């Protein structure tokens, strides 16, 4: 019985990891865009992004998730109803969870990337521009490698926090690790056992990630130095 429940819980781990990875990609891409926006010369853009960051970082993750999963569709549907069209929108817990986490953590990623970008010597970019390199090329060849190295600690931290935040999506009805653990706990009357299993899963993921990203950091350091003459 335990084996059944435990394996169902851990099988949901795939879903949790997919959710977290999806949110990671979304938050990184969005975060990078926001970081560039923050460094732009247009004051209104900087202000807008600062407001966004302030709102996201000022509201608990759980409340933000409830807002996106419940309030946002409600608001959209109320508007659609009022405007007379016959449409409706729906967000499955998986997508709502991923989008919410992606958006929340884009705010944190944007801070990490912004300080990373600021630490890349401006002279390198100017030289590249002087050579007539295309902006995409400059980004790919010069900015990104250095940004990866500089932002890695903050990036790792954000990833770890995000993995743990996925547990909250269970409260929206997504059948992830936490949800399955809750089900097993309530069905068997042995909450300690099954929450321990869930905890073990998350600990394994965070430990593996920490070591993995540490190894990556060391790798990036080496590559950087190898290029120097």
């Amino acid at each position, binding site marked *: *019985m335990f084996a*059944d*429940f435990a394996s*169902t819980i851990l*099988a*949901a781990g795939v879903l949790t990891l997919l959710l977290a990875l999806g949110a990671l990609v979304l938050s990184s891409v969005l975060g990078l865009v926001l970081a560039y926006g923050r460094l732009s010369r247009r004051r209104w853009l900087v202000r807008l992004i600062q407001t966004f960051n302030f709102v996201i970082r000022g509201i608990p993750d759980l409340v933000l998730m409830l807002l996106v*999963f*419940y309030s946002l*569709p*409600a608001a959209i*549907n*109320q508007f659609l109803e009022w405007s007379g*069209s*016959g*449409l*409706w929108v*729906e967000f499955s*817990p998986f997508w709502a969870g991923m989008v919410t986490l992606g958006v929340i953590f884009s705010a944190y990623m944007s801070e990490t990337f912004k300080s990373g970008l600021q630490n890349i010597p401006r002279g390198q970019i100017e030289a590249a521009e002087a050579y007539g390199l295309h902006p995409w090329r400059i980004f790919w060849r010069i900015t990104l490698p250095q940004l990866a190295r500089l932002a890695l600690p903050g990036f790792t931290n954000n990833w770890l926090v995000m993995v743990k935040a996925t547990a909250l999506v269970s*409260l*929206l*009805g997504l*059948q992830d690790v936490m949800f*399955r653990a*809750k*089900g*097993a*706990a*309530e*069905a*068997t*009357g042995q*909450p300690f056992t099954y929450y321990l299993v869930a905890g073990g899963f998350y600990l394994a993921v965070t430990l593996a990630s920490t070591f993995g990203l540490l190894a990556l950091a060391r790798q990036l350091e080496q590559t950087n130095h190898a290029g120097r003459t």
Partner: protein
Amino acid sequence: MLRLKLALAMSLLAAPALAAPLNIATDATFPPFESIDANGKLVGYDIELMEAVCKAAALECNIANAAWDGMIPGLIDGKYDALISQLTVTDKRRRVIAFSDIYSHPTFRFVAKKGAGLDISPEGLAGKTIAVQTGTPMDAYVTAHYPQSTIKRYDTGSAPYLELTGGRADVHISYQAQVVHSFLKSGAGKDYELVGPELTGADAPEFGEGVAIAIGKRNSELVEKVNEGLAKIREDGTLEALNKKYFEQ
């Protein structure tokens, strides 16, 4: 011109949606009516009932688990097409959602530890802790009639049992069939017993008129279809077979 294009695009998006299967939500924390088994599958009386109704009414249904929080609001907002979750028909709910024909008349009962000697009345339970699931008729009932008791509310149907066995609650009130078949008959519930009177909608308005399938208010077509399905399964004995299967006394 742009508006026309947008409208066309949106209507194209809407078209396939109309032909899509119905989204039916359930709060699967309420065995034996709806729960998730050890392999992660949705099982239970209500699940089988809904599948039978859909088959009888020739509807394509997709039953999924949802958090109790968002079920009724989700139905109101059109996120879900129907709800099946031992939902009691009450006046309060009728104001915002529609119901199919009633398919069951549940009894409600308190459950407590054997020999606890509790007097099930507002005076008797003064100062005691009553556990209920939030937003249910039981919640409304104890909130209205047991002002001197401490009421603890949980967002799932099975959490109150955990609190009862954990010693944090003195009593729990729920659907009698649910208490008997999912708790008292299980290992965890062997030291517990039903106490107090058998309550129905006749005893308190909070307990409503009976249990039905909830459907969006504007979807009168679906209400008709579901009622057709219900009538069919009543006629051909499916409902009776289901009752026997789950509640053979």
